[in-house]
């Protein structure tokens, strides 16, 4: 479905990605793990068109995404939930969700999906008129995910969804990721919480300073000695 081949992305003079290749197949949860600065978020931003790679190819369902503006990548069905959630703070929960459906013309379908979003996260339903900026971190993460789902993505990209959240909420978020995947959603997940991510994902990539250091099925990586030492905090 998504094929990223040997991309190099620069931030000014700094080469953040030094030839990353990853693949996501339909129906999978794929995770990118790694330390700060390994290039996880940069990879997502390059896929979503916010950054342009200097080299390499990105194909989504057989079509090249290189040079496609970010808002057009969204139109093709790749929707990213950005790091830090990035809720519209002075718009209500409902308006935030409507923004998620910005590109859709099927009003009936949008209304249906609104119901589904509130079903998925009942806490949002109670707060539909509340301003996004007044929600708790966990609620904002739920809203960010629900907002992305309103676009009816073909590929959902999540950047650090567990960041700064209480463990109880992290469980809720990961349960939702699994549930969405069971319903057929393809997910590319970037996480610092390597244990949670690898338990949830079908496959994973371990990034180190702009390169793929390891790749394999999630469970396998979870038991890989190097991963356990470096990312799961075992001695």
């Amino acid at each position: 479905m998504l094929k990223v081949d040997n991309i190099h992305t620069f931030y000014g003079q700094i080469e953040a990605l030094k030839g990353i290749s990853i693949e996501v197949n339909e129906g999978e949860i794929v995770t990118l793990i790694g330390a700060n600065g390994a290039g996880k978020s940069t990879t997502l931003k390059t896929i979503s068109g916010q950054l342009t790679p200097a080299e390499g190819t990105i194909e989504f369902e057989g079509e090249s995404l290189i040079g496609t503006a970010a808002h057009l990548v969204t139109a093709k069905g790749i929707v990213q939930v950005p790091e830090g959630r990035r809720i519209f703070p002075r718009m209500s929960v409902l308006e935030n969700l409507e923004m998620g459906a910005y590109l859709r013309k099927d009003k009936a379908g949008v209304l249906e999906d609104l119901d589904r979003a509130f079903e998925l996260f009942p806490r949002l339903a109670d707060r539909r008129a509340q301003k996004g900026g007044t929600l708790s971190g966990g609620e904002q993460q739920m809203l960010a995910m629900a907002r992305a789902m309103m676009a009816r993505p073909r590929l959902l990209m999540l950047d650090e969804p567990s960041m700064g959240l209480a463990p109880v909420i992290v469980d809720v978020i990961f349960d939702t990721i699994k549930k969405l995947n069971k319903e057929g959603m393809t997910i590319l997940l970037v996480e610092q919480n390597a244990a949670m991510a690898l338990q949830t994902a079908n496959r994973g990539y371990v990034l180190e300073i702009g390169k793929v250091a390891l790749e394999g099925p999630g469970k396998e990586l979870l038991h890989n000695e190097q991963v356990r030492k470096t990312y799961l905090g075992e001695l």
Partner: protein
Amino acid sequence: MPLTRVLVGARGSTKAFPLISLEQLEETGETQVSIATIGQQLVNGVTLGGMYALIALGYTLVYGILLMINFAHSEMFMGGAFVGLFAFGWLDNYEFFTGSGFGIALMFLMTFVISGVVIGLLGVLIERVAYRPLRHAPRLAPLISAIGMSIFLQQAVLLWITPRQVPFPNYLPAGSYEIAGISINNIQIMIIGSSIILLIILDTFVSKTRIGKAMRAVSQDREAATLMGVDINRVIAVAFFIGPALGALAGIFSGMYYGSIKFDMGFIPGVKAFTAAVIGGIGNLRGAMVGGFLLGIIEALAAGFLSSGYKDVVAFAILILVLVFKPSGLLGESVVEKV
């Protein structure tokens, strides 16, 4: 023939909206502060405020989206007045428009539309040539470009149209009403009515329509809006159409109110409207509306009760007070700092 009133003398166009009735008010004696005086200055102030609010919206719309102050915006006000002058002049040739009340109403409507559209498109063009190439430059660069654009537009009108103050036609029947000692004329009624209607339309547009919501989303988080599929350039173009179009209408109102226009007429109202936008909370649309009316009323009261010479002092003193005690403006949202 249209009734034209020319404002002459030293208090010409370099003064922002000189309050015509002041001298008369002062003659009545400073000790006689009556309810009628307050009421009269309120009417004058709301008229002035409606124009300030219309101009202020242009500053605040652009600031909300691009975080830049469009210093060329005052020239949209001036340009709107000139396009309005030409549109009136052109339509005046047709008896259909001058012959009946309906024709005159239609003439006003067409002049508003022509001026709004021409200046709106000018605004979009200015963004393309003068600001977009500098979008990723340091923040000072587009500001300087905007000042350059402002000077260019003023000089273009000076050289190619006229360096003189020119009379502005008024096709409204010269009517004036008096209620409890407070007089209000047809021009004031039109300015107050039209600006309130325009403000309501804009408010509805931004809160209800798809592109209006996209504008708010972009001003709150540009990156997130892009990820929702919003085309930033389109939103910017819409903001650069609406703001100048509203400013252009304010220019026509000003021309009618004071009876004349000139190439440098935009400067002081531009500064005042910018002040209004800051008082209300720059980036906040309702703030710009409130700030505009508030500034107009304060100025009129200061002119009525102190002296017309003090109105600018009071206006800018209020600006300083707001900046010291509530820097985000009266309706400004406190900025959420990202961790």
